[in-house]
Every structure is written in C-alpha cells, then in structure tokens.
C-alpha cells in the first residue's frame, strides 16, 4: 500500500476523530462543538462501514467524542464495532454517565478514556461546565474507571480562571488514579468564539506546563497540547488525523464547524477518497504557504498561527480566500 501526496500527508490517517452525537447533558461555555444544536446522529450502519474501511486502509485508531458520546444508547455497540475492525478506541467524555454497567461492557475495549476536569473545586469546574453538582460525578468516574484498570487521561482546558490551579487539578487526577494528565489549549471556536472567552498567554503557560511536567514526571504522564507551542509543524490535523462530525461531514480538524471547510461527507464519498483527493484538504495542509504570518501586521498572541483551526476561524485575511 503506497500513497503519493508528495510528503504532504500519510497514505491514510493514523487517527480519526468521530463525533458520534451532538447531544449532550451539558452546555459548556467553551464548547467548540456547540453541543445540543442538532439531534441528528450518524446511523450505526454508516459507522460500521466507516470502521470497516478504516481497517482496510490501515488507520490505527478512532477517538469517539461528541457532544457527549455516552448520550448515545448504542455507544457500547459502537465501541465493540471499532474493536471488531481492529481499531484502537479512545473515548472523550465528561464522565457523568459512566457507571458500573458501562465498565463491565467495555473492559479491555478502550485504550484511553479522556475525562474533562476544568477546575480543582466544584465551583471552578462547574463555572465553565455550566451546571451545578457535576464535579463529584466527574471525580467518581475517574476513580471508578481507574480502579478498574482503564487508562484514564484527565484533560483540562486552560482558561484564565483555572490557570493558577493546574497543579491542584493534577493532584486530584493523581489521587483518583488517572495515568495521564493533558493540558488542552482553549481554541476560539463554537461557544468559545460566541462567548468571546479569553485565551491565556501561551508563551507564559507553555513554560509553566513544562515545569509541572518535570515536577510530576515520576507520578503521572503530562501531555501538553502542541498548540501551546509556536510551531506550525506540530499540528498533525489533516496530515495524520482527520475529524468527522455527527452528520458525517469531514473536516481536517474537529475545531472547525464552518461549512465552508467541509471536505466531503462519508455517506456520499469514500473516506479514503476524501483523504487523498479533497482539494480543500490539500490546500489546508499547505496553509503555511498561503499565509505569511511572521510578516503580517496583525500577528499577535490572538492569532495563534500554530493552530490552523484558530487561524481559519479567526484570520481576517482568509475571509476572502476561496477554499
């Protein structure tokens, strides 16, 4: 199996992010996927066909997210299907609906469960997550899963509210048995864009996160989002990974929702065909060449030119560009 995209992208994506639903039990202030706007879900047979195809082209794994993936009644079935087609399964959840039955049905079938924890107290966590009483549910899920040998990654979207308490959040992750901690950069997209949430100065924060990574290196694995660094080449979206939303629309990155950037729909076109031949994908892979951020008079922290989704969502110079 050989591909030829002149080094631009792999023959097949290594990882596919799949939003299995847009439904959610929360309405977070920062949510890029603007959950709960639409009740439509990709039918199970389409998901099955997708997984089968991904197995054929050599994709390694899928990350199931949403919305809240556990809002789908057939989520266990979806996880089983991914396993049937040899795909590693990552699951991204707020943890609220995790229970013993879910554990029993998915044991050994999920390689990583990412649970969102955005504050070190109920007040802090629930401020961003917009609902009272969920902090304890989230901690319970982290503990229950960890106690049952699931690999749990606790993820925090860094905001001006929680930036001073990251070490405390890491301690909570540790106490509840998480194996990995992930610092996620807030991307101005969806609700974050609508609510005009502030982005923390990434030059300061990346240094601080490195210090924490060093400090906790013996206790927990700390992953720092590549978007915290000023280096475009770190971004693997569209090159090694691809995102499919709950309607089957393919975007190069999950943080994009503007229909202008849809590269195809898996119910109409083969995913591999989209990956190899979509003109939009090819152009977005080369965005660095289209733009010259270093010389741009607008270049400042808010551009975050290392994140292509941020750029596409926010760069005024791209408004007139016809993708």
């Amino acid at each position, binding site marked *: 199996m050989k591909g*030829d995209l002149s080094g631009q992208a792999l*023959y097949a994506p*290594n990882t596919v992010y799949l939003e299995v639903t847009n439904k959610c039990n929360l309405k977070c202030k920062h949510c890029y996927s603007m959950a709960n706007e639409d009740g439509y879900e990709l039918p199970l047979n389409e998901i099955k066909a997708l997984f089968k195809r991904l197995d054929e082209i*050599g994709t*390694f794994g899928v990350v199931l997210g949403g919305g809240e993936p556990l809002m789908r009644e057939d989520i266990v079935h979806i996880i089983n299907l991914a396993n049937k087609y040899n795909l590693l399964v990552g699951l991204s959840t707020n943890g609220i609906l995790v229970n013993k039955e879910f554990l029993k049905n998915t044991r050994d079938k999920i390689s990583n469960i990412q649970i969102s924890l955005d504050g070190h107290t109920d007040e802090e966590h629930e401020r961003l997550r917009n609902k009272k009483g969920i902090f304890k549910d989230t901690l319970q899920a982290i503990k229950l899963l960890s106690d049952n040998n699931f*690999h749990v990654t606790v993820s925090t979207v860094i905001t001006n509210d929680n930036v001073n308490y990251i070490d405390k959040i890491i301690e909570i992750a540790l106490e509840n048995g998480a194996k990995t901690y992930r610092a996620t950069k807030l991307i101005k997209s969806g609700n974050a864009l609508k609510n005009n949430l502030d982005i923390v100065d990434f030059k300061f924060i990346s240094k601080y996160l490195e210090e924490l990574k060093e400090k906790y290196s013996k206790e927990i694995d700390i992953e720092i989002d590549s978007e915290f660094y000023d280096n475009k080449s770190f971004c693997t979206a569209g090159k*090694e990974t691809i995102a499919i939303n709950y309607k089957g629309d393919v975007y190069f990155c999950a943080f994009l929702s503007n229909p202008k950037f849809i590269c195809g729909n898996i119910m109409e076109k083969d995913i591999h065909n989209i990956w190899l031949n979509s003109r939009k994908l090819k152009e977005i892979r080369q965005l660095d060449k289209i733009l010259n951020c270093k010389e741009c008079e607008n270049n400042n922290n808010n551009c975050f030119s290392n994140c292509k989704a941020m750029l596409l969502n926010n760069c005024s110079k791209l408004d007139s560009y016809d993708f």
Partner: protein
Amino acid sequence: MNNLQRNPKIRWRREVDEVCLYIPKNREMKKLNNVGASVWELCDGSLDSKEIIEEVSKEFDVEANEIKSDVEDFINQLIQLDLLKEA
C-alpha cells in the same frame, strides 16, 4: 541464529518512504524511515539478523560491517518494545 518476526498484533502501514506503526507498550505512534523501515519489512520470519544486515547493505549500498552494530541495536530495541520476536 533465530529468524526475526514482526509481532502479528502490531498495526503498521507502509508509506512512501517510511513505515508507520503503533507501539502498544509505549502508547505511541512511531515512524521508521530508511533503514528502519527496510529492516521492519524484512522481519517477516524468513531471515535472521545476519541475513537482514546483508539485505540492507545491498539495498543502501553500504558495507555490512559499517551498519552491523546500528542494525543490531535497532533490532534489540524493537524486541524490547515487543514489536519483534525471534521465531
């Protein structure tokens, strides 16, 4: 000397000039290029390390003893990561 065989459970894929694979033990994806990719593909259970070194030396047009220790180190790393076994 024993023949070298890829762990059949490892997911991997040939790309234009590299091999992509997922290493369960480290929970990471890895790219092997040039010699690494070639060694990986040669570990189909039919050759031992000496024969693999000979093949690689022909393919890359270098003396076998120039690459011997590097290739052996690489093979040992793959064995330690449970990616290869001696058949």
